[in-house]
Every structure is written in C-alpha cells, then in structure tokens.
C-alpha cells in the first residue's frame, strides 16, 4: 500500500486532503481504533450538552472517502510498526505493508494518580464513547465533580450542567484557563459560568475519591479539607501525546513524536502529525506539542503532501483557541502571557467589565505576536493576519491596532497586492 495512516482524526483528514492535492491515484488506507467515522472531537461537548445530535458528528460525508479512494479499517488498532520491513501489525492479526506511513494517533487523557479513582463512575472526556457514557449517566445522577479547569474540563462541566447535573469544577492553579488565556479573560469566563450556576473552585484539587464498602462513589475530598458529595467524577485535565506505539517501534520521541520541518520522523518513510507530534512552532522557532485542532489539520496536510512526493516545509504551529461560555465568546492566539522580565515584549490591555469586553495585544519589538479577545471578537482574523504573516506594525498602524481597528489597508503594499489583486496590470 502506497499510503497508510494510523488514526482517524482530523490530522488524518488533513493528510488525505494533502495527499490528494498531489496524487489522485494511489490508494490510501486509514486504520482507526475508534468504531465511528471521523468526527469532530470538540463536538463531543456539543453532543453531551444536547446541542447537536449524533448525525452531525461526522466531519466528511461518506462519499468523500469514496471519491478520495480511501479505504477505512475502523475499530482496528495498530499494535506494532516494523520500520525496517515497512509493515504494521493490527490487533485483528493482519500485517500490512506501507510505503509511506503517517502516525496520527492523537492524545490520551492525562490522569494523575488520585486514591480511589480506580472503580466505577470515574470518567474521562476525550472521545465519543466517553460522551455517550456520560449522556446515559446524566439521566440518573444529581452531582458531578470535574477535575481540571482548562478548555476540556470547562466544556465537560458546561455540557453536564446542560443535562441538568449540578457541577463543580476543580482547578489546581489560581485561575481557570491558565494555559491559553490570562487573568482578565479567565475571570470574565469564570463569572459567566458562575452566573449560569456552575461552581468553579480554583487553587484546590482532589485529594481522594471516597467510596463506600461496596465501592460506590460517594464524593471527593479536596486538598483544602472540604468534601464534595457527588455521583460521578470526570477527570479532564488535558491530553498527553499518544506515542507509545511509535516509541516501542524505535521511532524517536521527546515530549511527542519528533518530526522535522517536513513532518518526517526519525524512521524512513514514516511521518507524524497532530496531537502526537512535536513540531516546529511558528513564533518560538522551537519544537513543541500544541494539541489543538488547526495544528493537527495543518500538520497532517503538510505530511500528506510530502508523503506524496512534494517538498513542502511546515510553516509552523500557531497556538489558537476559540471557545464560548454561554454566549460569551473568547479567542486567544499566539503568545498571550509573555515573560514579565523581558523588555522586548509590550502588552496593551483594555478591559470593560460592565460590557464584558476585553482586548489584550502582545507585541514583541515591532511585531504583534499574540492577542486575547473576550466579548467583541469580530476583528479576530485581522489580528491573526499580523501574528501569522509576521508583518511588522509601523507606529501609525499601531495606534489603529490598539484602538481595536486592524484592517487590510495597514498591510505592506506588495503583500496586499499579492494577496488581494495579484496579476493585475497597474494603470499608468
């Protein structure tokens, strides 16, 4: 087989679309451990919340796979890769040859050891099966404790709350959303959640999960001495790269699978992309794992084109998150919490608590390198342009950006023309 892809998530779809940009002929085989067609992983919170039905989960219609000449082996797990013989072995006892292999195995939930967590009614929230379990559980339970106040934890909490469950979210650090957002944004989001009726507790975590003699879950002892009664615990702290398969096969790993600027791993003909990969960061020029959707697609897309024989350099991952809390939209792109002791950074922040509006812009020398928007997010893309294309911001333009009015007329002339009106003959 010319192309084999392990994993059936968004990185995999990116790779299929990348391969087909170059090679319309040769067959692609996708092996995915989950049973269902590729679905929008972030959509599991919409499903749990009851906002969408299962029919809206699939990312691409069935005909996409037919038209793209992709065969799917779902409900099948790859258990070994032999990079010398160029074969993979599955849990169904098959061995399959590959010329080009993509490892897109994503992440697995990070689960810290908490006494009492082994046993019934402790769940994760990273895949469809978890969501389905929680949907059926939600009917019979009253209270849930969610461990983790990051993106996934808040989404799990919100969705369970929408199913009529009383929810407390625990976050060990002093504020929620500590990775992608700053204090002001986190406080606006936290206020919104509290207002709706969720409980958010920061600076505490679960010390022990209490069970009765039969092993039934009773509640959670907190690090501050409190006890919270509950029927289920959801551990939703985040994901770590799912690289064991690669590591076992002798493929180089660090924090994720190591890839070069063409998404190639250390093994010949083997590529990696998505939450499992440690790839070049656009802004920091170093390799990092940034487990977000857009990066997974883009890395897969780049890997796919290279697998099909092109010579494409990955432009670099860019951290970006867009997440709404009961109608309050928040967006964060690039570097949003720069080191405080570095004078090359300059931060401008505008907070209007009454209007629930916040705008934070982070400059590094004369470049915009990151921003946070809460409430009024409509200009987001225009800020993204400056971060992504790394265009310098001249002084007069900076005023306009600070005022919240970035636009395309601030772009350098040549770049503007190449982007919007290429190949036109200028009038004399």
């Amino acid at each position, binding site marked *: 087989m010319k192309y084999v892809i392990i994993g059936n998530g968004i990185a995999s779809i990116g790779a299929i679309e990348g391969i087909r940009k170059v090679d319309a002929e040769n067959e692609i085989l996708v092996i995915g451990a989950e049973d269902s067609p590729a679905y929008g992983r972030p959509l599991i919170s919409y499903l749990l919340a009851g906002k969408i039905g299962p029919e809206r989960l699939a990312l691409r219609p069935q005909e996409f796979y037919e038209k793209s000449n992709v065969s799917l082996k779902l409900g099948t797990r790859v258990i070994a890769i032999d990079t010398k013989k160029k074969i993979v072995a599955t849990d169904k006892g098959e061995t399959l040859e590959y010329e080009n292999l993509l490892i897109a195995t994503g992440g697995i939930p990070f689960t810290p050891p908490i006494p009492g967590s082994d046993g019934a009614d402790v769940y994760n929230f990273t895949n469809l099966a978890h969501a389905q379990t929680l949907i059926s559980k939600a009917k019979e339970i009253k209270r849930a404790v969610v461990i983790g106040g990051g993106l996934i934890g808040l989404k799990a909490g919100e969705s369970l709350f929408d199913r009529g469950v009383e929810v407390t979210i625990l976050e060990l650090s002093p504020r929620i959303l500590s990775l992608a957002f700053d204090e002001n944004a986190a406080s606006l989001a936290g206020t919104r959640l509290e207002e709706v009726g969720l409980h958010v507790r920061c600076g505490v975590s679960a010390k022990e999960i209490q069970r009765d003699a039969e092993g039934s879950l009773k509640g959670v002892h907190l690090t501050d001495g409190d006890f919270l009664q509950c029927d289920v615990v959801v551990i939703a702290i985040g994901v770590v790269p799912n690289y064991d398969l690669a590591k076992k096969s002798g493929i180089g790993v660090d924090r994720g699978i190591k890839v070069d600027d063409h998404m190639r791993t250390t093994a010949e003909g083997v590529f990696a992309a998505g939450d499992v990969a440690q790839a070049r960061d656009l802004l920091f020029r170093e390799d990092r794992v940034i487990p977000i959707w857009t990066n997974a697609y883009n890395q897969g897309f780049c890997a796919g084109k290279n697998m099909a024989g092109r010579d494409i350099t990955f432009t670099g991952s860019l951290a970006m998150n*867009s997440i709404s809390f009961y109608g309050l939209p928040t967006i964060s792109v690039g570097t949003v919490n720069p080191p405080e002791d570095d004078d090359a950074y300059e931060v401008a922040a505008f907070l209007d608590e009454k209007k629930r509006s916040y705008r934070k812009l982070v400059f590094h020398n004369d470049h915009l390198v990151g921003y946070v928007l809460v409430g009024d997010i409509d200009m*987001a893309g*225009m800020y*993204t342009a400056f971060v992504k294309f790394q265009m310098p911001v001249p002084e007069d333009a900076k005023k306009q950006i600070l005022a919240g009015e970035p636009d*395309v*007329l601030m772009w350098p002339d040549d770049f503007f023309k190449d982007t919007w009106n290429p*190949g036109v003959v*200028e009038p004399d």
Partner: protein
Amino acid sequence: MKRVYPDKEYCIGCHLCELACITAHSKSKDLIIAFREERLKDGLDSCKKVFEKGDTCVAISCRHCDEPSCVAACISGGLHKDPETGRTVYDRNKCVGCWSCLMACPYGAIKRHPTESKIIKCDLCEGREEGPACVQACPNGALKFEERD
C-alpha cells in the same frame, strides 16, 4: 477558478457591493425589503467588508483560498473545499458557531451572524446566473470576477 478581485485603485467606498450582497442573499431579492426588514428581522448581513483609510478604500470578502485556514480550523465539517469547483463551501446545517474559522481566517472574511450561532461568508453567489452580485453592482469596476491562476 474565477474569483472576485478587489482593486483599491478604483474603489470609491460607496458600499453598493454590500447592498447588492444582502439583496442577492435575501428572501425577497428586493433591496428595500432586504435592507429595511430582513436585515433587522433575520439578521441578514453582507459578506463584504469595506475598509477605508483617507481616500483609499477596498471591499473584501472570502478569497476562496487554495489552502484555506478556515477549513483547517473548522471543528464540525461545516467548511470544506469543493475539489471540483475550487470554492470554499459553507454548510450552515453542520456549523455549531464556535468561531474558530473567524479566528483562523487571516483575511477577515468571516462574520458572525448577528442573532444565530452561524457565520456569514461569501459563496460567490452560488446559483446566480449573472455571477456575484457585488461585481455587477460596483459602479467603478473595482471588483473583477476573473480567472487568474
């Protein structure tokens, strides 16, 4: 493929393209009803944005990029590239209103629908025989619908 190319040398900032856009995307196909009623009642909004700085203006909308950032960002399959027509196609029924595309598109070509959790993006007036309404309405030839690849 044919795309809409805005020329800032010719744009006079009259916003007629925006009016043509909302009319073409209205139920009534009538400018006055679209502007007066559907805009307020249904949240009808233009896919175009007009930027002005001094006497320079430009009217932009989705570029239907070859390798679109919005498609890479879409978590629901609500945006995809049609390999046959080359268009970046929006499926309103799949969209969950997460605003990832709005954040990711560096061309500012996506708007939030004013009242629903849906986006507004140029569809090149799909199905309209005369082609994109904005191009037809521009009084100074500042918008061209051409094949340039």
